[in-house]
C-alpha cells in the first residue's frame, strides 16, 4: 500500500514538473526572435505567403490558446506536426529514438564496465589504482566532449579501425553498419561517464570505509572480500545509482554534441535542427519528452534506493 501511495505521489510531482516544463519551453520558444515562416520560406517571401503559413499552423491565435490546444493534444498523445516537413512529430521521434537509445546504451555500458571497477579499486586504495582513478576521473571530466569527439573523428577516419563517422542505419537493417556508426559517439560519451562513475564510486567507497561498521568487520577478522561484498558495495551504491540515473537521463534526452559530431540522426539532432528552424512543435515535444524520460529514470532510481537500503524506505514513511 505504501509503495502505491509513494508512486502516486511521484506521479503527481512528475505531472506538475512536466506542466512547468511545458510552460517554460512554450513561452521560451515564443520569446526567441525569429519565426519559422521566415526560415522555411526564406526572408524574401511575400507577406501573404507568410501569413498563410502562420495561419496553417494556428500561430495566428493567442499564446494561451495555442498553449492549451497543444498541451491538450500532447496529453492525448498527439505531439503535433512538424511545421517544416508536415510530418507527425511522434513518428519522427520514434524513428530517431533507436539511434539515441543505441548510443546511450553503448555509452552507459562503457561507463559502467570501466568506471565502476576502476572507482571501486581507487576507493579501496588498491595498488596504483588510486592514482589511475584520480587521473582518469580528472581527464575524463575536464576534456570537453567536442574536443574528445573531434579527436576520435580524426583518428578513426585517418586509420581504418573499424568504427565509422556517419552512415547510421537502424540495427534491424544492418547490425554491423549500425554498430560501427554508433560506436564512436557511444565511446565519446562513455568516457565522460567513466570519469563521472570513477569519481563518484571512489568517493562513495572512501566514505563508507570510514564508517564504524567496516572497522568492526575488520576487527572481527572478516576477509576483505567479505567486507567489500557485504559492507561496502551496497552502502556505496546509492550515490552511484543517482549519478548513473542522471547520466542515462541526459543521454536519452539526446546527446546533442555527439550526435552532431558523428552525424547520428537521433533525437538531440532533430530537436537542435528544429530549434534553428523555429519548428515549435518539434522543440516542444523534444523538451517535454526529454523531461519525461529524465523524471522516469530518476523515479526508477528513487525506487532503487529503497531496495538497496531499506532504511531509506523506513525514513520516507516515518
Amino acid at each position, binding site marked *: 500500500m505504501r509503495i502505491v501511495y509513494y508512486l502516486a505521489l511521484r506521479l503527481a510531482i512528475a505531472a506538475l514538473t512536466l506542466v512547468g516544463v511545458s510552460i517554460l519551453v512554450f513561452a521560451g520558444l515564443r520569446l526567441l*526572435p*525569429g*519565426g519559422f515562416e*521566415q*526560415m*522555411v*520560406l*526564406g*526572408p*524574401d*517571401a*511575400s*507577406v*501573404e505567403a*507568410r501569413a*498563410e503559413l502562420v495561419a496553417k499552423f494556428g500561430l495566428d491565435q493567442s499564446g494561451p490558446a495555442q498553449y492549451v490546444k497543444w498541451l491538450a493534444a500532447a496529453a492525448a498523445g498527439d505531439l503535433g506536426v*512538424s511545421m*517544416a516537413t*508536415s*510530418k507527425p512529430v511522434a513518428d519522427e521521434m520514434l*524513428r530517431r529514438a533507436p539511434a539515441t537509445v543505441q548510443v546511450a546504451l553503448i555509452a552507459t555500458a562503457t561507463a559502467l*564496465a*570501466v568506471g565502476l*571497477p*576502476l572507482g571501486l579499486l581507487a576507493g*579501496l*586504495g*588498491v*595498488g596504483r589504482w588510486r592514482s589511475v582513478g584520480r587521473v582518469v576521473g580528472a581527464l575524463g571530466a575536464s576534456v570537453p566532449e567536442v574536443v574528445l569527439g*573531434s579527436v576520435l*573523428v*580524426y583518428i578513426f*577516419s*585517418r586509420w*581504418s579501425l*573499424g*568504427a565509422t*563517422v*556517419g552512415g*547510421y542505419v537502424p540495427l534491424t537493417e*544492418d547490425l*554491423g*553498419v549500425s554498430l560501427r556508426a554508433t*560506436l564512436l559517439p557511444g*565511446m565519446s560519451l562513455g568516457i565522460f561517464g567513466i570519469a563521472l562513475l570513477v569519481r563518484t564510486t571512489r568517493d562513495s567507497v572512501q566514505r563508507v*570505509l*570510514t564508517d564504524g561498521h567496516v572497522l568492526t*568487520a*575488520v*576487527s572481527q577478522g572478516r576477509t*576483505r572480500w567479505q*567486507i*567489500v561484498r557485504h559492507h*561496502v558495495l551496497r552502502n556505496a551504491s546509492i550515490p552511484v545509482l543517482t549519478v548513473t540515473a542522471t547520466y542515462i537521463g541526459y543521454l536519452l534526452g539526446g546527446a546533442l554534441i555527439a550526435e*552532431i*559530431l558523428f*552525424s547520428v*540522426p537521433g533525437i538531440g539532432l532533430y530537436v537542435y*535542427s528544429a530549434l534553428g*528552424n523555429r519548428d515549435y512543435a518539434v522543440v516542444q515535444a523534444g523538451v517535454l519528452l526529454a523531461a519525461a524520460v529524465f523524471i522516469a529514470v530518476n523515479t526508477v532510481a528513487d525506487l532503487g534506493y529503497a531496495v538497496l537500503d531499506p532504511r531509506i524506505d523506513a525514513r520516507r514513511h516515518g
Partner: protein
Amino acid sequence: MTGISCALRRGRAWLPAAVAAASLLVLPGLALAQGQKPVIWGKPSEVLSTDPHSSGDGSSWTVFYLIYDQLLSTDDKLNITPKLAESWEQVSPTSYVFRLRKNAAFSNGRPLTSADVVGSLKRLTDPQKARGWGKQIGGVNDVVAVDAHTVRIDLAKPNTALLSILSVATTSILPMKEIEAGSFDPAKGMLGSGPYKVAQHRQDEAWLLERNPHYWQSGKPLMDKMTIRVMPDDAARLAGLRDGSIDVATFENPDTPRLLGAIPSVQSVVQKTPNYFHLDLSGLNGNSVFKDRRVRQAAALVVDRPAIANAVFGGESAVEYAVPSAFGKKLCDGLPSYTLPRKERVAKAKALLKEAGHPNPRISLIASSVLVTYPLIAQVLQPQLQEAGFSVQVQQVPVAEWYKRVLTTNPKDSNFDASLTWFAGFSDPGIVLNWWTSGFSPVFTTFLEPVAEYGDLMAQVRQTPNGPERDRLMTRACGLIESSANMIPLVGKPDYIGFRRDQLDARFGPLEGNFDVFKYVADFKRR
C-alpha cells in the same frame, strides 16, 4: 588510511582491466553491406522546404536540380542552354515561344506536357503569393499552351533576364496534373522530371535517390542511386571523405581547400560563382547612425575588399562589384571606393563622419552564425571600420534572430546598424541589381533608403536588350548603389567541393551561377 584498504593492499591484486579493455574494443570485423554503392554526397544541411516555388534557400535548390527540371540551364560560362525546352524563340520584345522535349516525363511515368509548364509558371507568378522569383519574371500577361509541347509566355513588359530566370530551380516545372488532383503535394515531397527520383527520405538524416527511369537523357544518369547524407559537422564530412565512406562533400568553410589538400585521393574544387557578400547598413532606422547617408558612405569608403579576400579566403575570392565580375563587364570598377588609394579613402571617411556630426560612431555589426564566413569577414571588417573612427561591436546571432532583426518586413522589428549577407548573381547581371530597387523585396524595404531614380533605371535595365546601352544603364546603377551606400558589395562567395577521385569519376563546373552544383550528375560514374 582505513583498515580495510590496508588489508586489501596486502592481498592479491585483481584487475578489471580486461573488462575495461573489452568495453573499448572496436568491431573491425563487421563488414559493410555489399552491392552497388550509390554516389554518396555529404551535405551540410537538410532541405528546408521541398516546394521549389516557395523555397528561399540556395542549399535546397541544389537538391531540386537532382529531382526537377527547369525549362533552361546554363553552361560553364553562364550562357543559356536547353533543358526541358530544346529550343526557344523570342517572337516579339514581350513574347517567347518554348518547344519542349517530347520525351520528357515525370518519374511516375506521366509525360511532361505544356500544361505542366503553363500551370507551374502561373503558380509561380500568382500575384497573391508572388515570391522574389515571381517578381523577377515581372508582369505576365499570359502563359499559353500552343500545343502539347509548345508554350508561349507573353510578358507585360520586356524582360531581358527572363531566360536566365527560367534556368533557376525556383522556376522548376512541377507535375501540375497530380498537384491539381491532390495526389501530390509539393510541400511534402518531390516529384519531378530530373535525373533522380526520391526513393526514401529520412528527415535530417538522408535522402535516398534512385534514377528516374523516364529521364529524357537516354541511358542516364549513369549511376543508379545517389544518397544525400545530412552531415552538419565539417569534421564529419572531412572524415567521410578521408575514409571513403562518402564520395563527395560540399562546404562553406574557406579553409576547406587546405584541409582537403591534406587528404590523399581527394580532389578539391573551388567553384567560382557570381555570388558575393555584402555589407548592409540600416538606412531607415532613426536609432542608427547609418540613417545619415554620409555615415554610410564613410563606411563604404573604408572597406578594404582585397584584405577581406586575402585574409578570409586565402586569395580564393576576389573583389566584387554590384554587377558581378563573373560577367566580365567591368561596369562598376571605376567608382571611388574601388579606385582611390586607401589612405585617401580613410581620410575622406573621417571627413564625412565629422561633417555628419558623428566622428566616432558606435555601431554593432551582425554576423549570423548560419555561415562560418560571416564572423570571419566581420573580424576583418572591424579594424577597417575602426580606422575611420567607428567603434564596432560584432554580434554573432542565430539565423532566426538575424532574419527577425535585419531581413524583416516589419519596420518595428528592424533593429540593427550593420549586417553581413550575400547575393546570388545567377546568369544575368540585371537579376542581382533588382534587389536595390525599393519595394522589390519586402525585406529590404525596412532598411533600404529609396532612391527614386533607381527604380526607373532598373525598369530600363530589365527592358533593354543586352548590349552597350544596357551596360551603360547598369554602370549608372552602380553609381547610385555606391552613393546610397546601403548595401555595399564586398567579395565573391565561392563554393567548396571535395570528392574522392579514386572512387568517383565526376565533373564540377568551374563557374556556377544557379546553385546547380551537381549539374553534371547524370554523367557521374564509379571508378
